């Protein structure tokens, strides 16, 4: 039963989200994200870049809308929604904006998984290489 106001992710990647955010000084290099929201945002933006979306199957709801930053996350989510629908009417429907993001995130998370699994290097450096490759 979906709880209102929470973001959904695919249940089978919930573990990945947790692994990537187990951030303390001890494993900053293998789990560099501060919260699951940050993993979600990265997955969403990576997914948008590859222009592919996926619908989720079974869902988990790791965090709440209020966790998004108003100055950084909301504008990005809105931009993606505007770019996706080619119009600004979408801004009136916040739940739709989130749904679009969720679908992109479902795609983008797989790219993060690939970065995690590159055998030799440490995740943080893989991530850095990826983001610099623009």
């Amino acid at each position, binding site marked *: 039963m979906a709880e209102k106001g929470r973001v959904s992710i695919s249940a089978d990647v919930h573990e990945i989200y947790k692994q990537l955010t187990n951030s303390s000084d001890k494993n900053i290099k293998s789990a560099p994200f501060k919260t699951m929201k940050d993993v979600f*945002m990265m997955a969403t933006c990576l997914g948008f870049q590859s222009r592919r979306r996926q619908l989720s199957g079974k869902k988990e709801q790791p965090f709440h*809308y209020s966790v998004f930053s108003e100055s950084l996350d909301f504008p990005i989510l809105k*931009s993606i929604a505007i770019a996706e629908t080619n119009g600004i009417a979408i801004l009136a429907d916040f739940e739709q904006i989130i749904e679009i993001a969720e679908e992109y995130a479902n795609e983008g998370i797989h790219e993060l998984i690939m970065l995690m699994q590159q055998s030799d290097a440490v995740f*943080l450096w893989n991530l850095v290489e990826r*983001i610099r490759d623009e």
Partner: protein
Amino acid sequence: MKIERIELKNFRQYFGEQQFKFSTDPNRNVTIIHGVNGAGKTSLFIALNWCLYGEGVDNIGQLVSKEAMARANPNSDITAEVNILFSHDGVRYTAIRQLSCRKQEDGSIRELSNEKDFKLYRHKEAGKNEIIDNSIGIINTILPSNARTYFFFDGEKIDNFSRPESSREVQEAIFQVLNLEVLTRAKAHLNDAAQDTRTELKKIVSGELRELLDDETRFANEENDIHEDQQRLKDEIARIEQHIEQVSSELRNLEEAQSLQKVHDELSKQIRQSEQTYNHTIGKIQSIANQSYLWMANDAIQKASNLLEAKRQRGEIPSNIRQQFVNDLLERQICICGRPFSEHDNAWSHLSNLLGESIPSKLEDDLITTSGQLSNLLERIPVERQQLNGEMKYMMQLLDDIKRAFNQRDDVERQLSGSSQEKIAKLSQSRKAYEDDLFKMKVKYQLNEQRLVDITKQRKELEKKIESAKKNGYRQRLLVEKKRLAQESSDAINDMYEQFAEQKRLEVEEQTRRIFGLLAWKGDHFSDVRLSEDYKLEVFDRYGMQARPELSAGERQVLSLSFISAMAYVAQNEAPIVMDTPFGRLSSQHRASITANLPELASQLILFVTDEELRDQALQNLVDRIGSEYRLNFDKDTSCTTIEEVKRG
């Protein structure tokens, strides 16, 4: 918290009704109270602590004014009262605590206990006052009981933090003022609860479930053992580092070794600084990478920005999109954050209260604002990219520097070890042996940390097996569920704690450094202040050497004061700093340099001074910031103190 007024009624040596008014004007935020020892300063401290927290007083008979009791008729009651008017976050409160005693026929005193002996009021408009139910809770939100000893303190205790053996006190202070204590306790108690539940379960299960529980107990025990081991290792490491420093110190005093030792010292300093900077840089890289999803969204933002701009130019921006949105939400009785208005959540507000955070504000949906935000974000991207490139380059360079410095230092050590002078050679060799041991210990420490991570992983897998194992009956299922909840909550709190303990330590370090820089006398030549990972407060001189053993009383006092103020700043606890004879043991230079910046450290400063302490330059520095001033006059015959207001011309 800003104290406006304290009223004392028949409290200790304050006979009758007397009061202090404290200055709350930010430009004149210093209150001075003159008095010799025994004149009534301690009583005022006790009054503050007793009224607000009910603590710090052992023997009841001491509170009610002896003079009042003496004058009272038999079978009459005398009440001691402390009444404090204070404000916090724009709200005014009055706290009143009373203690009544009855003078009996035979002259002896009986305490009358009274449930209503403490009341806390909130002042509202039009002179109305509202009594607060959860008074203890509210006071603890304003200034936690555990933190108060760091704000209301006396000059004698002030150098508690800067002594070499004080790392426990420092750590405790940070934990308490920053409320981390709550997290560590919660985690420990939940662990205990999980353990208790496991014990209870083992009594009623058998077979597969029994074995799994035994495994779980083994893991829990191993975890405890490793934690103990880590603590021991830390102590060992500290000890070895001290030995190394001793050897270095001896070599510095040997003429033949001096110049090489100097090089050795310089290289050690470089290594230390580079390692610190390296860790810091990785942290910065992580921060940047964490938010770099912004860069990935570049195209989307660009497209959205263009679209908005195009619409704006064509005059097509509807002004009422936000209004439609908001109305829709209002109709459905839902707040922007998705929760129904009625239930802005106990869980949420509990934690928010704990952290002092307010409920998030509405989504700003104004299209003009959005447009502006998008251009800002686009501008940020190239700047952040450059930052990341810079940090990565810097990090590689640091790694090289560290490696090179280690190699060079090894060379120096080899030279010293081969010295023709036996004493030098021996010292150098022993230091090399210590360094090797140190390295081994650090490796062991790392391995233990890794083992802990593995155990946690295995523990979680085991938990899943326990959940799916066959259970007989409701009680077994309930206990398994309780155990799971306790364990997972404990782990969750541990995650929160780990994220913040380290960050807080760094913040306190940074602030201590800043404030120490303000307060310290420039003639002392200190270049750095650090709060190490094991909570040692250290001061370094310009050679990068630890100066603490040679700190004078004044310097220690300044260090402790800096530390306390830093914690207040980081905890965002606004509280008055109340200091008792703060300058008694300081040289005049130290007094002058501290007083020059003292008023900046707290929103309200209350100083108890003897007349010798405050004069010349120190007085000069404070005089413009004095908002109110009192003198305590102690009458030897009646043993009573009267408060006299002092006006400066």
